């Protein structure tokens, strides 16, 4: 499982997410999606082992008619952040040439959880939140 597949697997196992789409959500409340936005090499050891960072955007559409619902939505993002953090150690793989490299997720951090847009231009049709997720992982030769 590469890091994208592994993160989808982790999110699929979050109890409050039923269906996880890729890149874009449904506009109705209960829509979730994960988008992969970049991967960067952070460091390499002298044996060729790598530490990399992969960035994701997570989108979620909730009902957000009033403050109570929007506070609950923020609570969802907080619960999700802590759930993700607890999944450090999960195995990841990557293909390099003819070799399959294996490694582990070292840490999963989240940032900038915020209300992103109103798909229907009104709070009554659902509000879309985003959460930036960064995954630091290793690959061993």
């Amino acid at each position, binding site marked *: 499982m590469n890091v994208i597949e592994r993160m989808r697997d982790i999110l699929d196992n979050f109890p409050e997410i039923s269906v996880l789409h890729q890149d874009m959500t449904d506009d109705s409340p209960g829509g979730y999606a994960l988008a992969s936005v970049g991967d960067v090499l952070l460091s390499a*050891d*002298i044996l060729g082992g790598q530490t990399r960072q992969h960035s994701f955007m997570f989108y979620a559409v909730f009902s957000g008619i009033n403050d109570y619902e929007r506070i609950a939505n923020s609570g969802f993002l907080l619960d999700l952040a802590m759930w993700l953090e607890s999944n450090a150690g999960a195995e990841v793989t990557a293909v390099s040439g003819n070799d399959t490299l294996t490694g582990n997720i070292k840490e999963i951090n989240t940032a900038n959880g915020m209300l992103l847009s109103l798909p229907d231009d009104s709070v009554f049709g659902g509000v879309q939140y985003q959460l930036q997720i960064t995954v630091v992982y290793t690959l*061993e030769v």
Partner: protein
Amino acid sequence: MNDTYTSGKLQRSHLRHLIDSTFGGVSPSWFLLGKDIEDMSMELNPNTSTVKNILDESSVKDEGYEPSMTADPYYANPGDAIYDKVKAIAFERKKGDDCKTKLLEVIIDKTTGPYDAWQEDCIVKPTAYGGAQGGVNIPFTITPCGNRVSGTVTISNGVVTFTPASENTNNSESNDESNDESNDG
């Protein structure tokens, strides 16, 4: 005859340092150093001194080398073959022969083995333990201490086997006799 790399720089992973995880066992079991380490060098620490005689001639005295190498970080991992020994040396303050093992240096500058290699006795000394959040770090210094033997190494299924050359090379740093080279000053 082995093909030799003829152009392009060798990747750092082509120079490998291994230590005998048995620390004095009959058959060496080589443990590869380098995981998590971004920079590690054998510091040769050459010693030379220059004196000028009354004829204004300079004389350079070559006093050899005092090589050492530091593996930092070494994150304690009970699954590593060297873990028990490094742990014991650090926490039980062991010294002398308890810290003695063999170092194997291999340079992979051919496309197929066997590869040129050098084996030498060495002392392993942890310099600290602890470190920041994320892992127990026990960095250690490796000090070669003689009996340097050149030879070749084969690597098969991850198992490293060292074969001494028929003619051993003993150009160890600390036991070398000093060589004098004179230059007119």
